[in-house]
């Protein structure tokens, strides 16, 4: 729960708005709409009628109405989408173990994944689609996203430290990709920590995010296996400062002064890996970033029994407006010394951490209740930074030692990944620079 709110950075204020739901009418392809024989329910069945199938096949994947709702985010670019992109509402995050030791096979998987990801983020079905193919064979696409819009789906891949122990990649492991140290208070479940690689799927529609991970996992069977995954909802940070700051499950506004997707300067300074950062062996990371993922369980019931005064003291903000202690407005510059020494905001603030700033795009999670009837819920923390050693690690050291919030939270899983730069064009693929000799 690393709240790094109000930076003293001067680029404050002005627009900073990433268009939420871009409105380039007609330019955003939608998933094929379904005019089924008896409706969509039927089309999900085993065999749709020939005539009805024909109806759904006309047109060119363009939904003329409503193209501006849940539009597509471009997949290609210098950086991967899903980092500085305006945070979507839903998350499905999956970590995988690599099961093959055949480099060519793994590279082929990365290419297949890239192709599928480009299709899905544009709102298309995977491969030859979810129906209409051979009656005897399972369809390429699983079909549950048929008729849904791209919903700003982004798919972002990351490579874990353990991957560099395989495929002769040891000398290409970036120095910045360190194994995280143990932090006091950690109670990590190894079975849902780490992973050779990860895929972060963010979308405004949970079905679209789940569909994406499910289909990538399916393409990956035999080459990779899901190690653990996490669903998230209700983004807990915003990369669009004009939008209302979201609240976490403790009811507090979080990430008031997160790095915005439009703040090129701060992104360059704190998020994107630079060629100067790494030696020639890890130049492949230029334009990439480093991701820390932590599953932070909240002791919801005891928090809810805590007095309002104590809750506000713990955060260093008021609960209604989200204003820092002694201030009137959420975006007012905090006066750290007015806060208790162990207040969360005070400890997490860049001024208390030599200017350390990270880009957060965490999500709330609720996985039902645990065996004791307690809400199994909390924050799935995702933070991007240029160097984990200068970002998350010092910050979390500071917080784990003294944060008053620690009484109500526990870090239960943890992972770190090197997130390579973007896929440039349709001939490029996820991880090409890492796996190609020349890069």
């Amino acid at each position, binding site marked *: 729960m690393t709240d790094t709110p109000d930076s003293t950075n001067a680029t404050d204020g002005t627009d900073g708005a990433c268009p939420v739901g871009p409105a380039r009418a007609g330019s955003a392809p939608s998933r094929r709409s379904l005019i089924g024989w008896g409706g969509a329910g039927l089309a999900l069945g085993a065999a*749709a009628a*020939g005539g009805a199938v024909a109806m759904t096949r006309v047109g060119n994947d363009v939904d003329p109405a409503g193209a501006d709702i849940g539009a597509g985010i471009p997949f290609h670019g210098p950086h991967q989408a899903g980092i500085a992109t305006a945070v979507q509402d839903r998350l499905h995050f999956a970590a995988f173990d690599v099961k093959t030791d055949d480099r060519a096979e793994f590279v082929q998987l990365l290419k297949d994944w890239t192709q599928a990801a480009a299709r899905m983020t544009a709102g298309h*079905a995977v491969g030859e689609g979810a129906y209409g193919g*051979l*009656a*005897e*064979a399972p369809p390429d696409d699983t079909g549950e996203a048929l008729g849904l819009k791209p919903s700003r789906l982004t798919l972002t891949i990351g490579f874990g430290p353990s991957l560099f122990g395989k495929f002769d990649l040891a000398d290409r492991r970036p120095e910045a990709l360190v194994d995280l140290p143990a932090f006091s208070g950690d109670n990590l479940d190894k079975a849902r920590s780490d992973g050779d690689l990860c895929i972060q799927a963010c979308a405004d529609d949970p079905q679209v995010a789940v569909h994406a991970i499910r289909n990538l996992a399916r393409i990956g069977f035999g080459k990779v*296996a899901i190690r653990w995954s996490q669903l998230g909802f209700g983004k807990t940070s915003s990369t669009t400062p004009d939008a209302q700051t979201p609240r976490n499950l403790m009811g507090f506004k979080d990430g008031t002064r997160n790095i915005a997707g439009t703040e090129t300067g701060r992104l360059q300074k704190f998020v994107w890996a630079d060629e100067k950062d790494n030696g020639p062996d890890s130049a492949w990371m230029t334009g990439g970033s480093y991701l820390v993922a932590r599953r932070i369980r909240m002791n919801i019931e005891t928090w809810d029994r805590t007095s309002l005064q104590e809750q506000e003291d713990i955060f260093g903000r008021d609960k209604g407006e989200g204003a820092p202690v002694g201030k009137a407005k959420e975006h007012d510059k905090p006066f750290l010394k007015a806060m208790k020494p162990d207040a969360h905001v005070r400890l997490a603030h860049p001024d208390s951490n030599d200017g350390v700033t990270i880009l957060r795009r965490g999500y709330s999670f609720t996985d039902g209740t645990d065996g004791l009837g307690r809400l199994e819920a909390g924050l799935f923390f995702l933070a991007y930074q240029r160097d984990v050693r200068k970002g998350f690690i010092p910050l979390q050291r500071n917080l784990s030692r003294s944060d008053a919030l620690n009484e109500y939270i526990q870090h239960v899983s943890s992972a770190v990944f090197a997130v390579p730069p973007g896929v440039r064009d349709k001939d490029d693929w996820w991880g090409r620079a890492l796996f190609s000799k020349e890069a």
Partner: protein
Amino acid sequence: MRAVRLSVVTAAATAAALAAVTGCTQKSDAKNGDAIQVTASDTACKVSKKEFPAGHVQLDIENKGSKVTEVYLLFPDDRIVSERENIGPGTKQRVTAEVKAGEYVIACKPGMKGKGIRQAVKVTGGKVAKRDPRLDKAVAAYREYAQEQADATLPKAEAFAKAVKAGDIEAAKKEFASSRLGWERTEPVAESFGDIDPKVDVREDGLEEGQDPATDWTGWHRLEKSLWQDKKIGDREKELAGLLVTDLTDWQKRVGKAEITPTSMANGAKELLDEVASGKVTGEEDRYSHTDLSDFKGNVEGAQKAYELLKPVASENDAALTAELDKQFAALNTLLDKYRTDKTSYDFTSYDKVGKADRKELSDAVNALAEPLSKLAAAVVK
């Protein structure tokens, strides 16, 4: 065991569907005039034609009733030719099959229960689609294999029954897993006789509503519970042991008549892995004896047999697929060998001793094989 049945899918439908393989063109299968309309309601099962020519048969089903229904095309002895479950009220579904001349039954089951509302239909003359002779050979060889497995199962089941009848718990426990192997190897064929499967291989939670476990639960798993959990053999158990042999004898006599096609063989192989993925890898199948890995091995062997027989044709159509299948079968078998000391024995580690991480590894290996295996049928009929 869930009702995973060996459905008979057609080469003709495939040829039609091939035209639509790009996923963006119109399906050229436009012979809707030849289709048989089946109108299901809560009280009726109307068919538009009671006599039609052999070959590619298509049932266009509409459920006009208020209950979820299922529709079966059956042989007179209740073997399933083709079926579709879970047809919701107000929805339409299609079933296709390749059917030879003879007497058949179309049954609708409103509420998906009971024997259903039945209509006798007759299939006359007509043409039967031509098939690659190598595939006919594969089917014949697989039928022979299924028969061998049934034949070999009988004496083992009798040995198991004998120990139960003698009241010898330890001896019965020893015979339990091996009495199941032949069945497990050919499970999709065995299950195609919808009336035998629930008698011999149902688990307590698989009983239907209204069935009483005390009187209606029969077969291996009922005896498994007595031997391992209740640790006693009474008169009822002795009676059930005899009944198991009777039912398996029935299976042995009928297995040769099972309707088998190249695609049903391929999909049957995949279904065997599905059995592993949904029941064995979780430890649900043999929850009292924990002999799941023996069943697991049986399922894999049966799938591999079907695959090997189809491989000459499949490898011509999709060499990359068969290379992947060879690799994944080998990987799974190697992994299974970790759980037995003697590679000729079916004496595997008790599944309750297999830890969470190892179960995950087994599950990953099953997925790695089952995913490409689901593409085998397409490679066979291409």
